[in-house]
């Protein structure tokens, strides 16, 4: 069995809520490792320790790098609280990572104050022991090529040679639930990722227009949710049939208002769904001024119809920044699949950039919006998305 040591960040600062945050993170860690049994997750004062078969350690590390709340993950070796053993193990770790001429540094944290040496003293003792080995190495306390960390804790000493960065953020679930309006584009998955990062438990709402949009479009939404579910598992995807609404708006309302009217209907449906699912906030992938339907007037026109707050995490992002992020979270290749979706179905040549609320309300009067939206909401199909191995 191999050992992983996990450090967490921001949640250590929270006062009375701390146990709640730590329990959530503990649960999320266990959840992400499902399928890599037998493993054991233990929590001990500011650290999680995972013992797991060594052939599964890379896979575990990869998954843990997507668990929000984690700051870093290291492979660790545990030895008893014996200075001789610590020195021997430190030398072994250095040899495993040895390159002639390399620099190193020993960094000790002693949370177990009953250990007889202070941290600086341990640093110098271990450092000296390594230097005596006669290897071609030197100490560099500012920019070491290899940082050996020694943690002196109650149950023993933990030594690590390298650490992988975690994603930071807050454990998913500590900040309540939100509904993400997911389209087939690049933006909304990134917005969803940012919501998850701040501890939101997410459910996605995807509007489709069968039969005009095919299974390819729905599969795309499912695959995007699978990506998000690797960060926040499980994730529910709600598929809402939009065809009738879209047809009625297309046939009866001014063409230039079509996009804004569609968005207003989507937001109204999302708002109602949020109440059903006990969610407290809506997320969209809108960024200010990116397209003509993302003017202040258009954003205001959508805000007007929702009772819950609409958060737009990408509001100040440039397209390039969004693309960068999409590549990092690996949603890019899915978002760029070319299927028609309900938003590309009919695009008017000149959408209105400054529709007034009165104008929109007037346009909405000619169609039986209430019934259409209720039927859309009532015919939602909900899928539970698992990050690995399909949906159910």
């Amino acid at each position, binding site marked *: 069995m191999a050992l992983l040591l996990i450090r967490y960040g921001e949640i250590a600062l929270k006062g009375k809520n701390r146990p709640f945050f730590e329990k959530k993170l503990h649960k999320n860690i266990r959840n992400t490792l499902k399928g890599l049994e037998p493993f054991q997750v233990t929590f001990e004062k500011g650290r999680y320790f995972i013992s797991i078969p060594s052939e599964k350690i890379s896979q575990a590390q990869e998954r843990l790098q997507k668990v929000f709340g984690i700051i870093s993950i290291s492979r660790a070796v545990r030895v008893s609280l014996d200075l001789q053993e610590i020195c021997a193990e430190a030398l072994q770790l250095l040899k495993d990572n040895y390159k002639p001429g390399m620099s190193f540094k020993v960094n000790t944290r002693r949370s177990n104050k009953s250990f007889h040496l202070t941290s600086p003293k341990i640093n110098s003792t271990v450092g000296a022991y390594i230097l005596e080995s006669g290897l071609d190495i030197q100490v560099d306390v500012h920019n070491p090529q290899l940082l050996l960390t020694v943690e002196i804790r109650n149950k023993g000493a933990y030594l690590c040679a390298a650490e992988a960065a975690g994603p930071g953020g807050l454990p998913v679930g500590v900040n309540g639930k939100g509904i993400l309006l997911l389209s087939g584009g690049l933006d909304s998955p990134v917005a969803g990722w940012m919501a998850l990062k701040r501890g939101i438990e997410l459910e996605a709402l995807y509007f489709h227009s069968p039969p*005009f*949009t095919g299974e390819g479009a729905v599969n795309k939404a499912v695959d995007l949710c699978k990506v998000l579910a690797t960060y926040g598992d499980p994730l529910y995807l709600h598929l809402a049939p939009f065809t009738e609404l879209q047809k009625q708006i297309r*046939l009866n309302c001014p063409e230039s208002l079509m996009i804004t009217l569609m968005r207003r209907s989507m937001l109204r449906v999302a708002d109602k769904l949020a109440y059903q699912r006990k969610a407290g906030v809506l997320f969209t992938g809108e960024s200010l001024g990116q397209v003509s339907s993302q003017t202040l007037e258009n954003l205001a026109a959508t805000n007007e119809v929702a009772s819950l707050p609409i958060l737009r995490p990408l509001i100040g992002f440039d397209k390039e920044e969004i693309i960068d992020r999409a590549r990092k979270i690996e949603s890019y290749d899915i978002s760029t699949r*070319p299927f028609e979706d309900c938003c590309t*179905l009919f695009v008017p040549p000149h959408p209105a950039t400054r529709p007034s609320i009165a104008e929109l309300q007037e346009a909405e009067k000619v169609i039986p919006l209430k019934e259409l939206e209720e039927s859309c909401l009532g015919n939602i199909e909900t899928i539970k998305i698992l990050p690995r191995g399909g949906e159910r």
Partner: protein
Amino acid sequence: MMAREVYLDNSSTTPMHPEVLKEMQTLLERKYGNPSSLHRLGNDAERTLSSSRQLLAEQLGVKSGEIYFTSGGTESNNMALAGIARRNYRRGKHLLTSKIEHPSVLEPLKKLEVEGFQVTYLEPDRNGLLDPFQLAETVTPKTILVSVMHVNNEIGTIQPIAEIAAAIKRKNPQTIVHVDAVQSFTRLPLSPREQGIDVLSISAHKFHGPKGTGALYIRGGILVEPLLAGGEQEKGLRAGTENTPGIAAMALAARLNSENRKEKTAQSKIFKEKMLSSIETAHPWAQINGPRKAEGVPNILNISFPGLKGEIILHALEEHNIFVSTGSACHSRKNKPSHVLEAIGAEKAALDGAIRISFSSMNTPEEIEYAASKIPQVISELKAFMS
């Protein structure tokens, strides 16, 4: 609604013929030996392989030693182009083809350009036809290979390959003529020796055989460099254990699909005319892409509804259990418009609104009757609120 699906996307792939499926199942179960093994099971497989080779050779009127088995059309085309160019570059580095070839021809040629070959891409006319004389004019003493597809997979144009080959050989008898016959084999008469074809690609799943199997005819005496390094299979030209069940199934499918060709072609013609007349009566604004009648095969109909979107028509038809393709299945997962429709000068609205309807001998008159009445109806519904 039709209970069974009405499959009209036969240029993408075809369902397997029931007899072929049965044959393949038997082979998978019983003749699992490796043709290279020395024991009885190996010999059995080897015999199956050689009789399949014989059967296929007879279909083409060539020697069985000139047939090489591959994994399908893409590999056959790659092997023909890259294999011949890399082995024959000392005679010249010029290659010639058209702008409406399949990506499995165009992409290997792009790679060869990077390796230092010059490639000329000829423009077809509005119907997708190439002019043999214009083609021959481009041939130089340095032209080692010409690649032309027999039937275009998107618009169904039939190239006059015998005239093309003859014109090329008059200009340079050394030039090797490759024909991508993936769409035409078993549907149109093919005899490489009579038509002056030196190398010819086929793919089993286009004529009711299994996927993952194809063949390349290489006239004796032509030197080809293998794409894969490995065992000595296929006289060292194609390493890898032979897909015996697939190959036997392909040979059987070739025989079955070539039978009663005249009747099948006549039926296809009736299907196409029925479809066309019912669409054009209801929607005179529809535009045919490519050849109207004589120059095209009867099993492919490429038609545009300007103002509508191909993918949306496709999904709307799917709702009625009718399966067609947009411009071409190979493009339909990319955002790019079809390079074939672009090359024949189709306008933007026609590119966006194109669907391809393709028949096979497994379609029935009832299916066509149903689809021919449904398609114009669906187009009317879509038109009402899309354009």
